[in-house]
């Protein structure tokens, strides 16, 4: 109550700070940490602090030249960080911007004595606090000491303990196994039967046989506060957020609204005060996220077990660091949390830090919002239809979208538009037999469908626990739909519908018009969106942030600047196949435009990213990336003057798909024309083009029905590669071995891309090579050739890529350069393109360290598999390892400056004296029921890079960073398809040489025995004898698994359990023999002879 006044204590400002990044993008840790780290580095440099940054993820802005003073792209391990510390001698380390990875690493560094040994001060969050926030018992005790309520819980290690806990806690209860990431084995128990089941599986899953039994608050309101504190004990809350989904769903998987909507001021302040008490008790200097449960309103409360007694709220969890929620809060309010947190970490007080938004006031204030923000997670179930779609304590979303408007309904509908799920707008309804109300990725649509059918919102609240305020809003949306269906579309109705966030497309569907007709009617009525500023102060002060959202109101604040302007279309939510790489490109595009004297306008819907930082571009529009929103922004920027041109090359498939709409509307596109884009994307046009230029590609055709498909496959011969045209990340792409499978595929594929044709290509099992190139219409510059470790058939995004290609003959290189150049010029590309080739001569895997090089007759057999007339996933990687600023070159080309004028020439850029390996990173342990084998459909969520002078240490570092490093002298389980057994001989030899103990399933074991090596045979049959394959993985007998599949359904099914168990156990599981061989190869040789050096050192040459 009484804050003892204390003089702010002066803090010695560190001179040099090591900032730890968060590593690869995985579910639960995405682009928000690139945003946080980038802001932090900029902020520290403003304070005159030298920054050293380390991250293993090359697809980040933070690892760019110019963000930090020194950049290391190295694995995030204690050994590596200690070597960096020894070399750089920082006096402070800042781990709080690197997510849980950063915090965990800080604890490990402290435990290993590294920080003491090198006299490095931990900045931001004290070590004891990091531990207290992680250890549930310690956290509970700390909260108890400061009088903050936590849900009653009991620690249980035995059957008796579980009985006792049941008596004390009662049902429903949450069972949380100790030390299992992702809550494996636990769950919410509503019945005795569930309780005993989860207690059993939970204790079994926990390595120490311990579970926490906690009172379940499922159904309570979930509210979060973002809090800041400085060393002088000044505290503020940046923002609070209320979850649409009540307690029970991970906040990362919840629809979230900011600010809270159903809390009275007394409740708002109650939880705010609790949050401030907590950050003070934790002693965090920087940002902190507090999650609380608040007693629900009457309607929901009546459905819950008797919980009249006890406090009105509970503290659920604290993240003593910048988090995903803080990125959301920063974008939702305009308050730059990471930037302020970094300044606090080096001793600044909140009242000394200027408010970057207003430029006049200080950071010691709390943002006032005059709009509503809605976040909806983006789940990967459009790709993993077979996965478990239920939502609970384990986060499953890969990304999220945010939308801003003046009402909840409008913000919600805009957020739905921002999700970019094909054919799933707000009017979409799940199949009637699919409608269940438990939390799952489609629940919002289930609820909308129910209110449309007349279910009372209060009834839906009783079933789901979603507050009636939200379900009634859904009903208001449904009522508007009903009016649009019934009434003539007059000005007033259209105005009201637009104000409620209805897209022209949906109004069209409801009023039997095309989207264009609705847009025309809107224009006739003079109804256009206005743009309001996100200014952190609800208009109280004049602000300088060029950060806008659309709304149908009276006053427009985003007036055209009248200066030369170009629009960069961003890439939307992070999803598998369209990740942070495209945000990287969008950010560079904005920077390049500004440097060229052109005002950059960014449009994007993703709150996690650097591109939606308000100081990345000259203007930021937080909008859905659909044709209506993008064209409205362009119109707004044009005003009565010149229409700004759009750049569609950098925002992945999202942006490129808009090119045709923009072109049709007569809006200018910078760079490659819509026509060039169309040729590259349209199968028929592209084949004609290649034939005209004499460039070979695998034979194939685009088909529209099963009969034609079978005919084509027959002609070109199986196996064939099949996929729908115009899709992302190889979605629904498969290798098909025979006619039966082709029929099955054809009957399912059309669901994935309705009305579009299916492409059938001859599948060559060759080596795959990838190039990015920039073309100015006269010359084509190829910065480097990337060779995939895995043979063709594994999606390029899931392949390890090696730069430079180490096994290419001169003829192959020449052919690749020649084809690439001719394609670039022939398509009249202006800007970037990416081409994938398959090389069919020679072996599919050739060791880069094998001195004998490849055999072959020197004939280049190079086929073009795919051309993407846009930036690709590998742009950040190739730009970093070659030093060629691809996006900048491309933007300048679009603005009319040739490569020559920029000091570059065509052809293949000089080979750097390095080896860099890009390795994919997966999030499979979080997606139960999803098969992990590598195939043509992309599954990885992120990437890491290993860079060194030679292949072996480079690949070792890549594997280390990806968590796929094989331990020294380990044991491994091998289970291989017959087809790959021939290739496996070399692998087995490598493993044997490395001293590995071999376990194998029957056929594979026979092969190994035949090689004269010792092997233990393990049965595949799960119901039979023990130990079986699952046993040896789950009991820790083996440290890694190689399980290859031929691609037919049968072998996939057989290996499914092996792969899933290995995934749950978090041990390396290789499903491509080629990855396994690279990993085995990295074993042979000393493991600590890799170098650790700043990126620039590698590029400067040895």
């Amino acid at each position, binding site marked *: 109550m009484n804050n003892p006044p204390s003089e702010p204590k002066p803090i010695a400002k560190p001179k040099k700070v090591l900032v730890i990044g968060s590593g690869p993008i995985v579910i639960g840790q995405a682009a928000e940490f690139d945003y946080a780290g980038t802001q932090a580095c900029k902020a520290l440099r403003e304070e005159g602090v030298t920054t050293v940054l380390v991250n293993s993820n090359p697809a980040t802005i933070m690892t760019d030249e110019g963000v930090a003073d020194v950049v290391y792209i190295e694995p995030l391990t204690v050994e590596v960080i200690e070597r960096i510390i020894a070399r750089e001698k920082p006096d402070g380390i800042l781990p709080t911007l690197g997510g849980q990875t950063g915090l965990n690493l800080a604890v490990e560094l402290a435990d290993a004595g590294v920080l003491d040994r090198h006299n490095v001060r931990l900045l931001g969050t004290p070590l004891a606090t990091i531990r207290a926030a992680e250890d549930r018992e310690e956290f509970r005790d700390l909260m108890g000491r400061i009088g903050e309520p936590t849900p009653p819980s009991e620690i249980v290690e035995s059957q008796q303990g579980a009985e006792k806990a049941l008596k004390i806690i009662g049902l429903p209860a949450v069972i949380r196994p100790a030390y299992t990431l992702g809550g494996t084995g636990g769950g919410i128990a509503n019945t005795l039967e569930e309780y005993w089941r989860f207690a059993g599986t939970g204790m079994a899953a926990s390595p120490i046989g311990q579970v926490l039994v906690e009172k379940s608050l499922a159904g309570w309101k979930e509210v979060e506060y973002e809090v800041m504190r400085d060393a002088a004990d000044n505290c503020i809350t940046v923002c609070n957020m209320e979850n649409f989904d009540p307690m029970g769903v991970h906040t990362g998987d919840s629809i979230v609204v900011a*600010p809270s909507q159903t809390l009275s001021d007394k409740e708002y302040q109650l939880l705010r005060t609790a949050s401030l008490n907590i950050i003070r008790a934790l002693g965090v200097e920087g940002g902190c996220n507090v999650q609380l449960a608040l007693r629900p309103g009457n309607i929901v409360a009546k459905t819950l077990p008797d919980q009249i007694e006890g406090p009105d709220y509970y503290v659920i969890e604290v993240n003593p660091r910048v988090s995903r929620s803080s990125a959301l809060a920063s974008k939702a309010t305009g308050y730059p949390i990471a930037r302020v947190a970094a300044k606090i970490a080096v001793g600044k007080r909140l009242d000394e830090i200027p408010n970057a938004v207003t430029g006049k006031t200080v950071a010691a204030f709390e943002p006032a919002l005059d709009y509503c923000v809605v976040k909806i997670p983006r789940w990967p179930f459009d790709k993993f239809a077979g996965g478990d779609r239920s939502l609970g304590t384990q986060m499953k979303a890969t990304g999220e979208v945010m939308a801003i408007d003046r009402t909840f309904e409008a913000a919600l509908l805009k957020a739905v538009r921002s999700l970019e799920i094909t054919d799933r707008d707000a009017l979409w309804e799940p199949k009637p037999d699919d409608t269940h109300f438990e939390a799952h990725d489609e629940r919002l649509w289930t609820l909308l469908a129910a209110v449309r059918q007349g279910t009372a919102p209060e009834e839906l609240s009783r079933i789901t626990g979603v507050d009636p305020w939200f379900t009634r809003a859904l009903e208001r949306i449904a009522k508007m739909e009903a009016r649009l269906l019934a009434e003539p579309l007059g000005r007033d109705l259209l105005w009201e519908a637009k104000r409620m966030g209805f897209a022209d497309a949906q109004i069209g569907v409801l009023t039997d018009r095309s989207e264009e007709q609705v847009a025309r009617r809107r224009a006739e009525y003079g109804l256009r969106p206005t743009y309001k500023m996100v200014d952190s102060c609800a208009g*109280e002060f004049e602000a300088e942030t060029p950060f806008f959202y659309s709304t149908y109101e009276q006053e427009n604040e985003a007036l055209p600047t009248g200066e030369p302007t170009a629009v960069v279309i961003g890439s939307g939510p992070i999803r598998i196949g369209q990740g942070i790489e495209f945000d990287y490109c969008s950010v560079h595009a904005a920077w390049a435009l500004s440097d060229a004297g052109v005002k950059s306008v960014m449009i994007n819907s993703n709150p996690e990213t650097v591109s939606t930082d308000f100081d990345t571009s000259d203007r930021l529009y937080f909008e859905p990336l659909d044709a209506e929103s993008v064209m409205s922004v362009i119109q707004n920027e044009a005003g009565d003057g010149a229409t700004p041109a759009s750049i569609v090359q950098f925002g992945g498939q999202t942006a490129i798909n808009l090119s045709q709409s923009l072109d049709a509307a007569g809006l200018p596109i910078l760079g490659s024309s819509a026509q060039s884009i169309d040729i590259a994307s349209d199968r028929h046009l592209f084949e004609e083009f290649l034939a005209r230029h004499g460039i070979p590609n695998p034979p194939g055709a685009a088909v529209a029905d099963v009969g034609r498909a079978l005919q084509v496959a027959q002609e070109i011969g199986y196996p064939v590669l099949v996929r729908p045209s115009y899709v992302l990340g190889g979605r629904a792409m498969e290798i098909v071995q025979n006619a039966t499978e082709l029929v099955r595929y054809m009957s399912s594929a059309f669901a994935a891309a309705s009305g579009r044709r299916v492409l059938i290509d001859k599948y060559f099992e060759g080596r795959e090579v990838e190039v990015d190139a920039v073309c100015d219409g006269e010359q084509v510059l190829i910065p480097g050739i990337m060779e995939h470790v895995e043979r063709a058939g594994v999606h390029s995004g899931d392949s390890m890529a090696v730069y430079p290609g180490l096994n290419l003959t001169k003829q192959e290189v020449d052919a690749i350069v020649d084809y690439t150049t001719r394609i670039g010029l022939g398509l009249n590309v202006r800007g970037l393109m990416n081409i994938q080739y398959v090389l069919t001569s020679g072996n599919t895997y050739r060791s880069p360290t094998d001195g004998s090089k490849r055999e072959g007759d020197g004939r280049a057999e190079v086929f073009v598999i795919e051309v993407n007339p846009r930036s690709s996933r590998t742009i950040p990687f190739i730009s970093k390892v070659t030093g060629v600023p691809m996006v900048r070159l491309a933007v300048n080309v679009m603005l009319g400056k040739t490569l020559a004028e920029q000091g570059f020439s065509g052809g293949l850029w000089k080979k750097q004296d390095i080896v860099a390996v890009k390795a994919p990173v997966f999030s499979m342990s979080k997606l139960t029921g999803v098969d992990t084998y590598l195939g043509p459909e992309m599954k990885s969520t992120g990437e890491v890079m290993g860079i060194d002078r030679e292949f072996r240490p480079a690949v070792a570092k890549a594997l280390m960073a990806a968590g796929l490093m094989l331990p020294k002298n380990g044991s491994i389980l091998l289970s291989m398809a017959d087809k790959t057994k021939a290739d496996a001989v070399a692998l087995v030899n490598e493993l044997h040489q490395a001293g590995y103990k071999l376990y194998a399933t029957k056929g594979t074991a026979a092969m190994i025995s035949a090689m004269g090596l010792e092997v233990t045979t393990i049965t595949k049959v799960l119901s039979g004898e023990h130990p079986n394959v699952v046993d040896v993985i789950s009991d820790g007998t083996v440290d890694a698994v190689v399980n290859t599949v031929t691609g037919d359904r049968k072998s996939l099914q057989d290996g499914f359990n092996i792969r899933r168990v290995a995934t749950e156990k978090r041990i390396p599981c290789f499903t491509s023999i080629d990855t396994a061989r690279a990993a085995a190869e990295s074993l042979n040789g000393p493991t600590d002879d890799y170098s650790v050096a700043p990126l620039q050192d590698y590029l400067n040459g040895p």
Partner: protein
Amino acid sequence: MTDARVKRYLVLEDGSVFEGYAFGADAGTAGEVVFSTSMTGYQEMLTDPSFAGQIVVPTYPMIGNYGINGRDAESARIRVAGFVVREHCDQPSHADSEMTVDEYLRSQDVPGLWGIDTRALTRRLRTRGVMMGALGSSAEAAVGQLKAASTYGDTDLVQAVTTGHSYRWTDSDGDRQHSNSDAGQRRPDWPRRRVLVSDYGVKYNIMRLLQSRGCEVITFPATATAEELLQREPDGILLSPGPGDPELLDYAVETAKGIVGKVPVFGICLGNQVLARAFGGSTYKLKFGHRGANHPVKDLRTGRAYITAQNHGYAVDADSLPANVEVSHVSLNDGTVEGMRHREMPVMSIQYHSEASPGPRDSEYIFDDFVALMDQGMDQGMNEAKSN
């Protein structure tokens, strides 16, 4: 949303017209148009006597989500002259909700306007300054209201909100009813500290927070003289917040002059301005005021920054204060005076609302400071004040 929508208009002194829809009472009104940036606490705002004579515009667009309850009112009735929102909620969701904002306004004859671009209105007030405005069923009707209305700055609004007679605050069981019973001489069984409140427009939470700190609270009309107050043998006197221009309150200034130095005095908001005038200082009107729940204030004695609730249109001129009055708190937004201390006498005052409601509770410690000031008594208080 009401199905049958009736148009209603807001006309500002500068001639601008905002067309929206009617809610609340079917009536016209006029007042000074001001905006508040607090995102929660609309019921507290509506009933805050400091908003008397004003048409209040919350900048947060969705108002009424959790309804109106029996606990959150800060005075006996709605005090605002009119209420202008972007959206109001017809289906509130809260266990305590008893009625909608619309029903509440109707029940007390206060008109509202919804559906206008409140951000555009806010920006206009920010750039041109607050000004008079009126609500009417047509633009012409509103203009008529505007012409007929007395100017905000010329009206002693304290007279409209102060209590008619003294009363003792009783809120021991959360009941906001207060007794009209006698507030006479001290009795031995009464609490140790007796605080008298000069009611310029006091909020319930001020009295609650004093009571919860073991104070007996007796509230007096704003016109009570120093003599009337001192004869009740108080341990301290609180000069409350309230509406309007402090330049109009000579009677309150006289009272303040008569009590300072005789008993510990604590001024909040308008009370702060009255004290400044009593010490010979002056006040001035701010362009668009400070109204909201997010205003940072720096305590100059400790260097600490606090997030405060604020609601004032006038400020104390720091340069006008005599040497024996020090500025103890300043706004981190615009540097204006947010608190004063007398160097010799036990007098403390703040311009912001330590009682919050609505707003952050970070400054409730100020009430502890006041209690400490009373406990130190006159002499010690003065010594303490001197040592600062």
